[in-house]
């Protein structure tokens, strides 16, 4: 049962990921990305990571992609350049990098998964909000605080750049 749900979700994720990059219509790309995030959330939920599944939808589908859609509609972008057109070297490099990452993921999955019985070691205990909150506030406190500082710096920087262009 679980593996059937996983296979369906994974298939949807891969197909919609293709639809994110291949079609020329930006709205189609964006809506496929929403579908892909849903499929990813389903996969997280199957792995027992309810919290990550919810956060995935709230942050990406609910906030960031709405902003993207907002910009696409506001600027009324009708079409983007065709897939892989114009810049052959970049296209080649991108394909190589994607293939490399895919290969690494396959190797890691092949090495780890048969040992741990289908689930990555340590993943089961991290599912709900409480262990994630504990980990963020104890083990990873420095990284957590540092990222908030980074975000503040990014906001101030974006604000400064936006103001400067206005003048």
């Amino acid at each position, binding site marked *: 049962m679980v593996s059937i749900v996983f296979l369906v979700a994974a298939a949807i994720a891969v197909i919609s990921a293709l639809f994110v990059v291949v079609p020329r219509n930006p*709205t189609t790309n964006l*809506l496929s990305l*929403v579908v892909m995030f849903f499929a990813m959330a389903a996969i997280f939920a199957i792995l027992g990571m*309810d*919290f990550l*599944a*919810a*956060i995935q*939808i*709230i942050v990406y*589908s*609910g*906030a960031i992609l*709405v*902003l993207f*859609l*907002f910009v696409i*509609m*506001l600027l009324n972008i009708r079409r983007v350049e065709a897939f892989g057109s114009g810049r052959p070297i970049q296209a080649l490099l991108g394909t190589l990098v994607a293939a490399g990452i895919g290969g690494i993921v396959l190797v890691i999955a092949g090495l780890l998964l048969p040992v741990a019985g289908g689930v990555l070691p340590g993943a089961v205990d991290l*599912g*709900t*909000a409480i262990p994630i909150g504990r980990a963020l506030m104890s083990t990873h406190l420095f990284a957590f605080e540092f990222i908030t500082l980074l975000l503040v710096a990014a906001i101030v920087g974006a604000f400064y750049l936006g103001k400067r262009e206005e003048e």
Partner: protein
Amino acid sequence: MWADLAVIGVKLVFGLVVLLTTVPIMVWVERRGSALIQDRLGPNRVGPFGLFQPVIDVVKLLTKEVITPAGVKPLLYILAPVIAVVIALSTFIAIPIGKDTGLEVFGHPVDGLIVAPDLNIGLLYIFAISSLAVYSVLLAGWSSDNKYALLGGIRASAQAISYELAMTISIVGVLMTAGSLHLQQIVDAQGGVWMGFLPHWNIFPQFIGAITFVVAVFAETNRLPFDLPEADSELVAGYHTEYSSIRFAAFYMSEYLHMTVASALITVLFLGGWNLPWIDIPFSGWPGALLAMAVFSIKVAMLLWFFVWVRWTLPRFRYDQLMALGWKVMIPLAVLNFLWVGVAMSLGYM
């Protein structure tokens, strides 16, 4: 396994029937209520007190011609009202309408009639699904190929993003005092009294949080004074200008469904769910379960009337006022509530 699926199915059907029944009732309440507030008669011809008016309205909407204007983007144009209804309905499964009194039907626990009782992330699930409601408005506005509709959609997206932040921050206090995302545990944490004489409902210790949450919910449901996405006097009908017949009915219905879910959420988070003030009822067996459901329903009904009352009392915000309120007032207030809860908890007042 099939028996479990059947139990879930029965609960789903029950929940859907309850939720969908509120729609015609609320349409009637809104029309008669607005007439009461504006010193008019309102619909009073069909049935006693015009009670069958919603039935006639539904028949009218269903039998009208479905018009697809030229120039729309067909797939998205049809998908938008579908998304609206699906999202409004699916938030409902995590809301506890009754207390889990250990009842069993044919060996299967009733769990207070919640469809998904084991959902540990209950509240986050509701926020995750309801944050997608803006897609229906945006897509409807954009795919209609109409400038008023597009303006409505763009306004809706900016409004939803601004008020979602305040809404999420204002419930952090509730989560801190309850120590759980589980809606049943949030309600259980609100039993008893606070400071010796007040009911221990979150609205009393966290008054600011409750106010910010209610205002943000009004903005999220696109009700007046925050109905800028459809602002009749400037945008015709906003994002659903080009919709007719059943497709329009879907948008209309989703607004009332969102209102009902929002009222249920306010009840659970701030008004103590099924707890009665000062009276500590030992909820047990069928009478206890039914009493809990009755208390919950009465609170939700009063909040629904509050939605109608506010709509026919307040004028609409201007767009810049809306944005200023969202970013400069609501978010600081929500953070203030969160700080107050933290301080009060560490000093032992909560």
